[in-house]
């Protein structure tokens, strides 16, 4: 890679990055948090959830896939984009059955944490109450499709990090769901509880058994600090 640095702005703040770096990575390095869901460090970004949408020179782009370019203007923390992100998060909530009150992931869930950060009290769309299945066949792991947001992290992690291809999507559109690479059940696959794919779910769709509610309320990841606080260098208040 060349030594050249690229300079651009995010919400008026000058940010420097290396050629080929994505907007999201450059922002992270500069201590600016761009909300994201499907993106995970170490996996190939694919820009599918669109939560990280920013406005680059007036056009919406996924910050996790868009490379930085010299002199561009990026808008991130504006009312319009916040509204757009809230809409996406709202849709994810109504398209699944997200009952936080009995979910083991509550407090450590990235979807919930994003909703908290965006100040969402209730989704604005009507709830769909979809009919979803649960696969608890494996002795150590279960899949609860009620909570799956189709981010694809487990699919990619199983393929690229574990070298296994345990998970894959089946169906299209509203019928799309996460499936396992076996005749029928998760227990028929070669998945292991230590696989990266099992530990990468942002929500409570793929969980390890006998670990629920281990951390007491008040000490969970997002109880006190909003998601993204670790990235933000300054302590500007979150609204």
């Amino acid at each position, binding site marked *: 890679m060349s030594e050249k640095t690229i300079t651009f702005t995010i919400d008026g703040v000058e940010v420097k990055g290396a050629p080929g770096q994505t907007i999201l990575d450059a922002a992270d390095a500069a201590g600016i948090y761009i909300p994201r869901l499907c993106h995970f460090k170490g996996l190939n970004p694919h820009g599918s959830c669109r939560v990280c949408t920013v406005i680059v020179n007036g056009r919406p782009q996924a910050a996790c896939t868009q490379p930085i370019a010299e002199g561009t203007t990026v808008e991130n923390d504006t009312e319009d984009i916040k509204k757009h992100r809230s809409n996406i998060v709202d849709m994810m909530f109504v398209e699944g059955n997200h009952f936080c009150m009995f979910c083991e992931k509550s407090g450590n869930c990235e979807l919930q944490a994003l909703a908290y950060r965006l100040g969402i*009290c209730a989704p604005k769309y009507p*709830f769909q*109450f979809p009919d979803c299945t649960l696969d608890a066949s494996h002795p150590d792991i279960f899949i609860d499709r009620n909570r799956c947001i189709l981010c694809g992290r487990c699919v990619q992690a199983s393929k690229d990090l574990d070298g296994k291809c345990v998970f894959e999507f089946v169906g299209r559109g509203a019928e799309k769901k996460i499936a396992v690479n076996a005749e029928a059940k998760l227990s028929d696959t070669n998945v292991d509880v230590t696989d990266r794919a099992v530990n990468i779910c942002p929500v409570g769709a793929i969980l390890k058994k006998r670990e629920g509610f281990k951390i007491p309320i008040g000490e969970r990841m997002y109880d006190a600090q909003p998601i993204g606080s670790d990235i933000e260098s300054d302590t500007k208040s979150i609204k």
Partner: protein
Amino acid sequence: MEKPKIATASLAGCFGCHMSLLDIDDRILKLFELVQFDKSPIDDIKKFTGQCAIGLIEGGCCNEENVHNLQNFRKHCGILISVGDCAINGGIPAMRNNIPLKECFDEAYRDGPSVYNPEGIIPNDKEIPLLLDKVYPCHHVVKVDYYLPGCPPPADTLWEALVALLSNKPLDLPYELIKYD
């Protein structure tokens, strides 16, 4: 000036949100200085005595009585607030939303492991409200003005919201007071 009236109801809920309201501790005395309770389980007034400023609804709608009650609240309350996850998304009762009603009845009255019902009768008295096909969040039935999430919402959330609305301030909850569990 007369104190504004406040009404509360628990529909398909567990009364946990009402417990959380009581959990504001001694601020309940301040609340009684600020408002007068109308129809509510707190003072056991069964019927609206007039128009209310604020109505707090706990729980979603699982039967026709819930719907009538909710519509009655909408009619009598200037501001209607969905309090808690059951009012907002159906909550625990909504877990039956993907199970056909007949299966629910069979499990509850015929086939359940602790059920003794040799004649297989499913209760069908006129006094018993008819169950709805699904459990509906309140805003699927009437217009709801504000939402206070949580299971239950923290006492501070209820207090902050009521104080803000009673003093005509915008309802702007801080990070710690928006919780879904």
